[in-house]
């Protein structure tokens, strides 16, 4: 017994080293479980406050571009005002307001909230965007984030009281459903961790006709993003010999280097859609088991 204690004492530093290594590696490996834990929420709250202070200064540097973008977006919104259109037919009236339902059966599918980016990187292989809206402002996991000029930039993955973290499109684990505007073929959008200006669109069938410069949109099959938002343009075409599908290099429309204002989009039917898809899978598995 005494020898064991002597041994432990002699190598105490080495053991301390091993224990700390194991703790760090455990944090790293179990990140997905860990990042929901309470104390990371508190850490996000603190780093968020520091980031907000820093952001107050940093914002001045890209004020000009941001104003230009806002101006353009306002311009396009002004064009959509109902007063711009003359309706000869009085039988149909298009009503869109903030209520979820109206008397004609239109219902709201997506809800937009504005937010300010307080921290953002492009240099890592796993980039996150921190924004100053949290669960108190109604932000939840899996909401979509678009930049102020209307281009998709990420998906919310972690929420604290007043801040939330979005997984940037520039994250090697991110997958987004996207489609070609011209032919409507859809595929999976990923990032290869190399150049922050380009994303990779996989699983486009060879039958699709693709040209450089084609527009890539968010697909109608995505649970997070509303359909029809421009992600980027095709900058390079290659064929993946293993799968026989196109692998397209996509130049992102969003500028990840100077993100400042973003909109967070809530899909009001998200839970229903995901539950339905999960239940369907379970049901089919059950059927298979019964057949056996």
């Amino acid at each position: 017994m005494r020898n064991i204690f002597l041994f432990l004492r002699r190598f105490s530093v080495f053991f301390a080293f091993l224990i700390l290594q194991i703790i760090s590696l455990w944090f790293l490996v179990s990140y997905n479980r860990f990042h929901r834990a309470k104390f990371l929420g508190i850490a996000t709250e603190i780093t968020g406050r520091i980031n907000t202070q820093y952001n107050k200064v940093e914002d001045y540097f890209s004020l000009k571009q941001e104003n230009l973008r806002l101006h353009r977006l306002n311009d396009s919104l002004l064009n959509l005002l109902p007063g711009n259109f003359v309706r000869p037919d009085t039988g149909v009236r298009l009503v869109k307001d903030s209520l979820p339902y109206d008397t004609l059966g239109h219902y709201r599918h997506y809800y937009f909230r504005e937010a300010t980016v307080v921290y953002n990187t492009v240099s890592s292989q796993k980039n996150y965007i921190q924004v100053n809206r949290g669960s108190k402002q109604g932000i939840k996991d899996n909401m979509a984030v678009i930049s102020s000029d209307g281009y998709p930039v990420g998906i919310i993955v972690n929420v604290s009281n007043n801040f939330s973290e979005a997984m940037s499109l520039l994250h090697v684990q991110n997958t987004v459903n996207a489609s070609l505007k011209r032919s409507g073929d859809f595929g999976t959008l990923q990032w290869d961790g190399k150049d922050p200006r380009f994303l990779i669109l996989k699983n486009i069938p060879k039958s699709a006709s693709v040209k450089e410069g084609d527009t890539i949109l968010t697909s109608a099959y995505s649970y997070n993003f509303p359909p029809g938002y421009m992600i980027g343009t095709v900058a390079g075409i290659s064929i993946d010999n293993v799968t026989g599908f196109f692998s397209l290099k996509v130049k992102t429309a969003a500028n990840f280097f100077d993100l400042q204002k973003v909109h967070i989009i809530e899909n009001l039917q998200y839970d229903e859609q995901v539950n339905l898809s999960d239940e369907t899978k379970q049901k089919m598995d059950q059927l298979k088991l019964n057949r056996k």
Partner: protein
Amino acid sequence: MSDLLKNIIRFALLILIQVYVLNQIPQLHRFITPYLYYLFILWLPFSIPRVGLLLLGFATGIVLDYFTMTPGLHAAPCVLIAYARPFIIQILMPKDIGEFNYREPSPKAMGWTQYGIYVLILTLLHHGYLVFLEWMSFGSFLDFIIKVIATTAISLLLIFTVELLFPRKLKYRTNVQ
């Protein structure tokens, strides 16, 4: 200024510079990410007990991790270099702690060659382990090698620039502490 206060200020400054300057500057190339924050561990005084050194290393890494949302990624390499530091000092300067004339590692205390080797070995260890952990989840082997070499080179450049721009006024150690 006491050693404690000086090190606290140094810690805050290096972390803030890493988070708000070095992680934010537009990328030179995809292989190059400049790292400087671990200079805090390299500059800690000689007299810190080894367990304390490990805990400080862990704290440095985990604080940076909370800013970058990657818990454990920087903490593991920091603990590694905090563990390796006393051995390397022992090999480069085989002296008792009591015999050191200066309080912390610096070109003046160790000589430029020895200080250079000390920084080079710890930087290689740190980046090798860090890029290895990143590579485990993603990437190819050639990327791994090139990235270690490129980040090491840019970090060494940064450290020696800091060393030349801000020469530390080190007090000669006397019997009266």
